[in-house]
């Protein structure tokens, strides 16, 4: 299948790197949105690891996902500096607002924007600062409209 071809190409390009596993996993997730289970056996084989070891690494790291996310991934910062300016209330609001939506909501522990919180990140590309619940709704509305 198509995905497997991509996976094999990525493995071939990276497998000789020292400590190649994380770079391979990152590239697969960037290409496919997640790390599908069928990529585990070829990675294990190429890197001379057991499948359990590869699986263990995928599940250890918060960043890696095994199933495709929603149409967009929205990460709300839940760490202390954002808590100090209403981050928890924003996170709660976000949970309620995105219940049943096709957007994926995830906590993130600090984006390095700690003087202008609360902050959020959309799809690892876009950042927003000083996010109030109202501003959150406007941003999400725009994402939902943008089909």
């Amino acid at each position, binding site marked *: 299948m198509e995905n497997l071809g991509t996976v094999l190409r990525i493995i071939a390009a990276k497998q000789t790197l*020292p*400590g*190649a*596993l*994380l*770079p391979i*996993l*990152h590239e697969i997730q960037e290409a496919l949105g997640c790390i599908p289970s069928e990529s585990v056996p070829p990675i294990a084989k190429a*890197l001379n690891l057991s499948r359990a*070891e590869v699986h*263990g*690494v995928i599940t*250890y*790291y*918060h*960043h*890696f996902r095994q199933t495709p996310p929603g149409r967009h991934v929205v990460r709300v910062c839940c*760490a*202390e*500096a*954002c*808590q*100090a*300016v209403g981050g928890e209330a924003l996170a709660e609001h976000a949970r309620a607002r995105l219940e049943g939506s096709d957007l994926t909501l995830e906590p*993130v*522990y*600090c*984006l*390095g*924007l*700690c*003087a*202008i*919180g609360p*902050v959020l*990140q959309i799809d*690892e*590309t876009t*950042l*927003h*600062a*000083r996010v109030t619940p109202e501003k959150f709704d406007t941003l999400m509305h725009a994402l939902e409209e943008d089909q």
Partner: protein
Amino acid sequence: MSVTVYVPGDAAALALGADSVADAIVTEAARCGINIRLVRNGSRGMLWLEPLVEVSTPRGRIAYGPVAAPDVSSLFAAGCMSGGAHPLGLGITDELPWLKRQQRLACRRIGVVDPHSLDDYLAQDGGEGLRCARAMAPVEIVRAVADSGLRGRGGAAFPTGIKWQTVLDTPATQKYVVCNADEGDSGTFSDRLLMEGDPFQLLEGMAIAGLAVEATMGYIYIRSEYPHAIAALNAALDGARNWLGDFEIEVRKGAGSYVCGEETALLESLEGRRGIVRAKPPLPAISGLFDQPTVINNVMTFGSVPDILARGASHYHEIGCGRSRGTLPFQLAGNIKYGGLVEVPFGLTLRELLYDFGGGSHSGRPLRAVQVGGPLGAYLPETQFDTVLDYEAFAAIGAGLGHGGIVAFDDTVDMARQARYAMKFCAIESCGKCTPCRIGSTRGVEVIDRIRDGQAEQVELLRDLCDTMTHGSLCAMGSMTSIPVLSALDHFSEDFRGMRA
């Protein structure tokens, strides 16, 4: 002739709309027939003023901020392209008191230089340290770093010269230089500002380390939460290969694990495994990455090195206080009016930072608690705000400076809730190797929940649990989680009386 205009491309500025400001400026300049050269610089670190637009004039760089895209036409109407007066005008950037009162060394080019241009870096004294180092023997470089008194900026404050000496003294055919760019502490962003705003300086510091310990390969392990910094580093590396000579650097992306900032977990992760903490010894300096001698330092540690070589160890050593030499880039965060990057010599008080620089809380309410040094740092009450900012003074009150992050909370904070969060964060991020850390943190959340529900007698149990975690954990994740918890309990006991909101 064209006018040089600076609009930061730093992630914080982007989060506040800098891209649309840059677009509006380009459009408006074209409409007015003004020829501009747009530079996407880093942030000057005055984050409440972002997006901070600067215009180069014969008087110096003139600042306007915070600028939103709709302000741009009125700025042009006011003649901002020649430094004209406008309600958003701030005057000459370098004369702003908030910047002027700092002593920027490691951060001096952030926001000033064009981070995409090696030529600009070299034109602004960049590269001097590496040039000097190339004419020195490895032992001489190590001695300069040792004599400067530089201590690691990642949190543990270990003398950098001693670490480098150990690596130099350990024979091996392949040695490594690893930069810890995991910057996981909430309230910290100085590494990010440097990587985005002056990336060549980090590369230079690593190359100097390579010469000092005879390593030819370097890795930068950077957290996945920093996509803009990753892009900035990769772009800088593309332009720097010739300049770096035989020293090679590769950027490796983390995967959302706080404990991977711990140096041995980081090495495990770089090698392609789960980020589980290794028992020490062996020290990474003797057996580190792929079992080879490895220098591992924080971004700001490497970032401090070029100047030490260029200006001499004694120049650096003369600055500071007690056994804390040089400057520390503090980061003012959380509920603070003027948040951002404050690089000053050790020796100010916390109160001076919070009020003279920070201007008090963002909300306008009284500051009640301040967490210094990240999620494993102590919560300090107002009565401790006069503590001097140096490693020893903080250790003396059971606290630490860590990576220099300062997170302010106003009087609406519920300290039992903050203590609960410290335990919860430990439970989420524990690598799982030690039972007190892995299980104890989850128990800690439950115990604090019971206290908040009115079972005050559970405070004893919480103290016991903290004691077990402190003494039964392999690394600081488990052993130092008790610091925020107990400092909250000791200084804000009124919040632990079971009046759960």
